[in-house]
């Protein structure tokens, strides 16, 4: 399973980075390949490349606000959740998305 995602929270100070870290760890422990961009108060970091987006099975937006560059994901399967969902239960979140994807 290949995943790309974006994390962004209201103030772009803390939750963005905690959420990214939690999701990355959970994905890696499940054996998935993941790339996560952050859009925080100091701008975009770990920006996704077109190749990463192209190869992804789905896009995971862990966001509390409107993000920039959403048009990059046109035509992809996009799942959007608040940062708190990803912080609280990242593994459960990923498994639920993957289960649903595989069932469809």
């Amino acid at each position, binding site marked *: 399973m290949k995943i790309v995602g974006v994390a962004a929270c209201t103030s772009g100070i*803390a939750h963005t980075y*905690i959420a990214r*870290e939690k999701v990355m*760890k959970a994905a890696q422990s499940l054996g998935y390949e993941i790339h996560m961009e952050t859009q925080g108060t100091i701008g975009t970091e770990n920006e996704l490349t077109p190749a990463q987006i192209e190869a992804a099975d789905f896009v995971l937006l862990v966001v509390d606000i409107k993000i920039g560059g959403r048009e990059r994901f046109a035509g992809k399967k996009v799942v959007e959740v608040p940062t708190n969902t990803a*912080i*609280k239960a990242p593994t459960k979140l990923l498994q639920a998305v993957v289960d649903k994807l595989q069932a469809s």
Partner: protein
Amino acid sequence: MAIDMNSFEISKVITPELISIDLQATTKVAAIEELTDLLVAHGDVIDRQGFIDDVMYRETEGMTGLGQGVAIPHGKSKAVKNTTLAIGISQHAIGWEALDDEPVTVVILFAVKDTDANTLHIKLLQKVAILLADDSFIERLHHIETKAELMDLLAKEPEEG
């Protein structure tokens, strides 16, 4: 060498004066006020009430209790002179809106300057945020007994995810 550089950087935003390992507050508001007092005394916040108002406003936008007994209230505010953080560890539980519905004993108050051009300081806060995603870090945080132990723990380089 890399480790020395790192602890040097962390000490730019977190100093022992901004740590309380015996927080007296018993409520969320009182904890935010008590930590704000440390920031004011250290000269990092210039308008006490203005900063508290901004932090409380952020509280209305979503819960800042991360679960596992840790809360991260934060304010991006004109009242902040230097981007930094204050840390309070309490010997008693403090009620807080948290992802696991449990009270907290560790409160990390992020103070971010409204128009911060100093990326370095924000990167250091980011590093602390990343550490908070690590269960073993949280576990150690709950066993801190001295300010020096806390400073050492924070100087740890997060494992890149």
